[in-house]
């Protein structure tokens, strides 16, 4: 399951992800209730009833192979948007994202799962959603079930699972993909303490010279333990990048006082 042979062999230090001057802009409706009347009234005046959200603005970043990059930032900093753009879920508004390997994402657990179907069917469904082929899933099936510790109930419908069992299976499916570039967004806090340790261990195992890991988390201790580099994003901008200890210390200081010299400076 943890083969070091990736589809696109890479050396440590080669670029895995290269982001140039990336901006992602959302438009959301401004009126509280987007009624037809409001639309018509404003359409005739040619006024756009939208609010522009700069989720990511002019961000440039290179991520080399062999690195485990932690991403920290307050809610709404644009972390998830950045991850979605790297995974190709959202198109950039401007700038470009270059990938030198295939990407696997773990943005939310149990994507594509169907509650009415058995755990077995969902492993296949979830694996296909994650981009595996049917034969790949079949060859990994036993390991997935074993890792999730669900071999006894794998043929029961998913709706009979507890939420912990659900996330365990989802996590097991997601980490079985083994991409060159793996993005994990807030997905490590699943299950009980035992499974949490187990999943963290799995992430540590996934660290290898020919893989790049991007880890988004609010669990700063985990980030500090696992990552060898951390970036801090605030309001779509890259505030700092460096050794986990120093970036996290700065970030913690910011969380306490609500501002920091680095934020207040016009970066």
């Amino acid at each position, binding site marked *: 399951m943890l083969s070091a042979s990736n589809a696109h062999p890479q050396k440590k230090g080669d670029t895995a992800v290269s982001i140039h001057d990336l901006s992602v802009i959302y438009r959301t409706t401004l009126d509280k209730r987007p009624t037809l009347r409001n639309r018509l009234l404003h359409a005739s005046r040619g006024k756009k009833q939208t609010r522009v959200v700069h989720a990511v603005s002019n961000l440039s970043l290179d991520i080399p192979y062999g690195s485990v990059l932690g991403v920290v930032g307050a809610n709404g900093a644009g972390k998830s948007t950045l991850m979605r753009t790297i995974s190709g879920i959202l198109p950039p508004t401007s700038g470009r994202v270059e990938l030198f390997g295939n990407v696997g994402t773990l943005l939310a657990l149990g994507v594509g799962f169907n509650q009415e179907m058995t755990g077995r069917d969902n492993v*296949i469904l979830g694996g296909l959603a994650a981009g595996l082929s049917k034969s790949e899933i079949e060859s990994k099936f036993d390991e997935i079930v074993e890792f999730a510790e669900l071999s006894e109930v794998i043929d029961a419908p998913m709706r009979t699972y507890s939420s912990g069992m659900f996330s365990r299976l989802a996590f097991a499916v997601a980490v079985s993909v083994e991409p060159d570039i793996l993005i994990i967004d807030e997905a490590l806090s699943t299950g009980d303490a035992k499974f949490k340790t187990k999943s963290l261990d799995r992430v540590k195992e996934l660290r290898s010279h020919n893989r790049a890991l991007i880890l988004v988390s609010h669990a700063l201790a985990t980030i500090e333990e696992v990552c060898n580099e951390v970036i801090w994003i605030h309001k779509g901008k890259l505030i700092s990048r460096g050794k986990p200890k120093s970036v996290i210390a700065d970030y913690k200081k910011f969380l306490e006082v609500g501002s920091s010299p680095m934020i207040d400076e016009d970066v």
Partner: protein
Amino acid sequence: MSAPLEVFLPFKGGLPPLRKYLSQLYSRRQFMAAFARSELRRQNYGSAFGQVWLILNPLLLSAVYFLLIVIISGHADKARYGHLTASLFIFYLVTDAIVAGAKSITSGGRLVLNSAFPRLMLPMSAAVVSLFKFLPTLLVLVVFHALLGLPFSWTMLWAIPLIALFFLFALGCAIFFACVNVYFRDAQNLIPYLTRTLLYLSPVLYEASALKSNLQFLKNINPMYPLLDMWSRVMVHAQLPNCTSYIKRCYGLP
């Protein structure tokens, strides 16, 4: 450094690069099949009759409409019931695809936000689900056909290309309404009225030959009309489909 494996650039005119999109769509065909199968399984899961509803639903529907026709016209005949059942079943292939297709992307929620795949896959699998809900009803049609004593003939095999045409039309509708519903959520509320109107404008509750001469223009404005007329000729009367007359009509030929 080697060339990047993949580059994400801003979309031109809001559209992804088409060729790449289509090849991605093709590479995700296994997922589409599994997704459609799970959706089909989910729809009638947990009800007492389970998958039997796939047949029971259209059957009850045709019974209700037959009641309506008998009351309005005052008499019932075999061919009429055969026509109603056959037409209604295939008509619901299309409307089911429209209804499910419209919801497919907006209700995709977590899947749409968290995994990269061509979104076209969602309305496409909605249409495939509708097709698979329709196929078992063909068996019911054959049984009915025999029970009503309607003629059988090899020409009825024309039903196969006709079903393909109906499916293509259903697929197009599903994709169109999926897009419309993303930008204009009110569409979901309008669709029931739209499909109901389409039902009355189509030769389902009446036969195409019964259309009054001052209403002949309906044949030109309703894309379902020729399809349903041909379907009824093939499936109910075991005749050849009259496609040439519709093609001529289309180009204004005599």
